[in-house]
């Protein structure tokens, strides 16, 4: 399924989901998912809410563990490791090492409210990467400059707008220089007029090249602009994938066609996650 991307086939995938199934109790959320992502590739995940997009990202960020199957990151198992020739569950040390290649930006920012913007960005540099404070501050200011928040370094998150908060969250993830970045509906919690500034920052990062990006989004124009490949999920499986042109101009499956026609009417579903949480979906 994931073999139909022409431009990247020469490389080894940087992320490989192999036969991943994820269940919460009786409820199977992902069904035997196979997915390869190439280094530097920008992949957009689209699909109705509840289709498993967030779960795909959370498995890679090690926020959930797979029920079965394996995930490889940069040629190495994420959730498993070899010990005396046998495959066993990864320990914390192994997770820590592989996870350092991955960063994530969340829908609800998850900034640290008790720290200034600067400290939000430097905290992991200093205490995870063990970079000296002066150097960490220097790097943080550089990144904050890039996301247009150089002047807000001494503010607290609650003093910022949603769009500014999300840009700080992006800076905080970016400063760790992960090889893979996950963006999970990062504009869904924002007021419509603030969406643009966040998407512009992501577009700028994407245009710089090297970073592998997985973008879960309901912003179809954005997905079309940024992504090399669009993946459409529904009911815990990948229904269809291809280049933006292939998927948007010429959707093959009935499910994607009806999904897109709903969106083209201009109804991005902002409250999708809240509805799922309330159990009314």
């Amino acid at each position, binding site marked *: 399924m994931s073999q139909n991307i022409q431009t990247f086939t020469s490389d080894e995938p940087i992320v490989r989901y192999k036969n991943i199934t994820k269940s919460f109790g009786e409820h199977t959320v992902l069904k035997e998912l196979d997915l390869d992502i190439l280094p530097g590739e920008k992949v957009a995940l689209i699909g109705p809410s509840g289709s498993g997009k967030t779960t795909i990202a959370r498995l890679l*960020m*090690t*926020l959930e563990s797979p029920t079965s199957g394996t995930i490889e990151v940069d040629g190495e198992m994420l959730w498993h490791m070899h010990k005396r020739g046998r495959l066993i569950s990864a320990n*914390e040390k192994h997770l*820590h090492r592989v*996870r*350092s290649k*991955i*960063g*994530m930006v*969340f829908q*609800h*920012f*998850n*900034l*640290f*409210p*008790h720290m200034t913007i600067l400290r939000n960005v430097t*905290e*992991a540099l200093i*205490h*995870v990467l063990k970079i000296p404070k002066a150097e960490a501050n220097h790097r943080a200011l550089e990144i904050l400059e890039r996301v247009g928040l150089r002047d807000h370094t001494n503010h*607290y*998150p*609650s*003093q910022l707008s949603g769009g500014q908060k999300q840009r700080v969250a992006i800076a*905080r*993830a970016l400063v*760790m220089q992960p090889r893979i970045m996950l963006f999970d509906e990062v504009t869904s919690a924002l007021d419509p007029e603030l969406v643009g500034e966040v998407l512009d920052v992501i577009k700028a990062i994407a245009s710089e090249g090297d970073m592998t990006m997985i973008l879960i989004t309901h912003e179809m124009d954005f997905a079309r602009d940024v992504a090399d490949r669009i993946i459409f999920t529904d009911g815990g499986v990948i229904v269809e994938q291809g280049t933006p042109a292939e998927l948007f101009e010429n959707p093959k499956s009935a499910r994607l066609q009806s999904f897109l026609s709903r969106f083209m009417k201009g109804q991005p579903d902002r409250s999708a996650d809240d509805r799922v949480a309330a159990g009314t979906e």
Partner: protein
Amino acid sequence: MWDWGYANSILPKLLEVIPTTLASAILGFILACLLGLPIALARRSSKKWIAWPVAAFSEFIRSTPLLIQLFVLVFVFPQSFNITLSPFLAGVIGLGLHYSTYLSEVYRSGIDSVPRGQWEASIALNFNKLRTWLRIVLPQSIPPTIPVMGNYLIVMFKETPTLSAITVVELLMTAKVIGSASFKYVEAFTLVGIIFLVLSYPSSLLVRALERRMKRNERRGIA
């Protein structure tokens, strides 16, 4: 019935024991704060062999009267373990231990109030467990509990008369001694009541002011 002259004459004796009374409450409170946190952490542990015994111990302490625990400290400890504590020290330990089980619940509610997203951001940034606790979770969970903690300090202060049962010379004990020497109980006990009121009430106002200030800071986002 009320004898002003007499009341005046015994007041200095009562004021004299205020430091002991306050010290037992404050030291007990500090001990309770120090013990409460590890109890709260242990009870949340995913390791059953840690969580279980601590939970059982804590529930046991909480559901038995302080007085019995004090008696165990002063009567059973010397006999069984050959440890003899001064009444004051036993009082501090008893109060501290007893209330640590309450304070552990306060810590727990503080910890539970930290949104899941904070833990997830900590994982995404690759903080280890210890760092996540020390730099992300505890700094957010302890400040909101401060007013409740303050109230417990006042509660513990009002509990100090229990220590008279193990002969700690605090306010109630002193009043009883004065009263039984002169058979004038009204003045002594009334004065003790007033002293408690004078010390407790402003403290609770202070706690309330603190609470208001924290709410305000929270709105400004610098709690």
